[in-house]
């Protein structure tokens, strides 16, 4: 067993699960979407991105790309949410829906990541 592979898979899967946890619920209801969960989803997604750097195979490149997409979506959502809370002063239904849909997009990227990870693992010959 390779410790590095464990951490690698751990963070990729954790990014997806946290993302999913934040995403589920009514799209425009702030009570269904926990800001802390969002915070962790973003942090874990960033760590997963850094872990993917350095694999120069074709699969590695695609994995990195999906992670970068997820980061981009999550950061966009964070900026939007932060702007609504701090500058506008209120989180409208529309803003909440946008934040959650952006996170949903990030989740799709994370799903791709996990699927690629599983596909690679299955191909491995014992």
């Amino acid at each position, binding site marked *: 067993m390779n410790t590095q592979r464990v951490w690698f898979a751990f963070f990729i899967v954790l990014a997806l699960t946290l993302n999913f946890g934040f995403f589920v619920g009514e799209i425009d209801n702030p009570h269904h979407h926990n800001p802390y969960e969002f*915070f962790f989803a973003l942090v874990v997604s960033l760590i997963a991105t*850094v872990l993917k750097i*350095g694999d120069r195979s074709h699969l590695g490149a695609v994995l990195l790309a999906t992670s970068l997409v997820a980061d981009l979506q999550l950061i966009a959502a964070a900026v939007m949410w932060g702007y609504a809370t701090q500058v506008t002063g209120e989180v409208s239904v529309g803003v909440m829906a946008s934040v959650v849909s952006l996170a949903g997009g990030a989740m799709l990227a994370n799903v791709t990541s996990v699927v690629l990870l599983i596909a690679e693992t299955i191909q491995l010959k014992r």
Partner: protein
Amino acid sequence: MNSNTRGRSRIRGAAMWLLLLELRTPLITLIITYSISVLGLVLIPGVTPEGVVYHLSFLDAFYLVSYTATTIGFGEIPHPFTPSQKLWMLFVMYSTVIAWLYSIGSVLAVLSDPAFRHLRSYQRSVSRIHGIKYPYWIVCGYGGAGSQLIRFLDQSGIRCVMIDSNVTRADSARLSDLSYELDILVGDVAEPQTLVDAGVQRALCRGMLALTDQDQVNLTVATNTRILAPRVPVYARSATDANTRNLRSFDTEVVVDPFRVAARSVTQLIRKPNAFALYHELVDPDLNQIEVVDIPASGHWIICATGRMAETMVEAFVREQIPFCLVSSKAPGSQGDWSWIQGVGTEAQTLREARISEAVGLVAATNDDGDNLSILLTAQAENSKLITVARRNKPTSEPVFGQGHFNYVLREGRIIAQEMYARITTPLLHQFLGQLEIMPEALVDGIIEKLNVRLSGERPELAHFDLTLDGDEAPGVIPFLQTAMAPKLGDLLVDPGLDHPSMPLICLLLVRLNGDLVPFPGDGLQLEEGDRLLLWGAMGAHHRLHFLVRREDLFETVLSTRR
């Protein structure tokens, strides 16, 4: 083609990937410390001055951690901290500042790592070379020969790309005074990838010059080039006969053996001083005058040399039947009707044994510059009329040899550069030099005499150039070629100015379209379309000739008023 592009992208991205790989741990450390700090700040309740309990927002917390980690420290916002917040801030300060310094330190360490910097500058050179828009030659090895040849070629407007494994030599190449910026690749020429990176497979690559001082390396460069880019001609230096045969066995275009060329030059100087002077004026862009050394016909020569230089000299002198006497510390491999004297030649006694007072000339060609100078000075003291030939080994000894009043100085790098330059600039020149080898000395004397007549007593700087009679280069001449006017060679060598005086030029070689060679053609020779001419004369005269052959009206006047 496919493998080529893959090879290049591998090199191009390498430095970037190396940096990212090194930064993985610092980046993760940074993310984790930042997130823990932010989370703590958000979770720990604060109290406003009015006594209301509140929580920092993520924005405030991230802002606070960012300026703390970078040691900017704006203060406690939005309200003064409670003791519990202060406790957490202590943790934040030490952990994030350390993580931040660690990351920045790692980045700087990677950036200033010599291997990383070399990789980056290598990549920059490779991408610059692959963006070159003009034709170029690749020079392997920036030694005496390489630096001289790059300079010679620059004078003919031919550009080069240089490869050398030595950083110091590459730096000195950067300082060379050229009319363009020389592209330098610091790498091992014996590795095929280096040659690919230097652009050997590009269509603009005109040739490969293997000029390192190691035969084995030159051989490797030649074989690698043969396989990587079969259409690229290879010019190689070779210091042994076995290596020369090896190089020739797979059709290396040009092999220059500096020892053989040096020996040939010295015997040419003795037997055919005119051909020697003409040869050196033509092949060396730094020599612009004909200087014929007056050599007494009888008398013997003294050769002070060791090793391979002694062997090739003896061979050449025996072939040309020049009487000589060899001074050498080791017994020579071959015997003949010539004498061998043991010694270096630095002592007057040894030279007296070689009958220095009766000798015509002396060749000081040991492989030590100090010994050579000592031999020459001793010999000149013994016999002041002596013709002296010196061998300069190290380029750094140039000042003493340049000022030493020797009749001829053998410089290995320059000899190689001259030989290769003659073959690279114009194929006509090379063909003429082949003719010059077998030309009788009287005819060469006639050529020089004819030019002197045309120069009418002046001694301008000399140069050679070629001209092809086709629609591109001589549109003014072509219409008359098939007519009754029948232009002759002499009609070209006429100054288009007032009174049509003759131009200070002569034609050394004319090559017909079908490949026939006419060495040293007379003025009455009829011109034909497609003729290629090698002309030689005063520097700058070619501007007037080019002017004449482009103007149909001008050439018509010249033809109608010819005498």
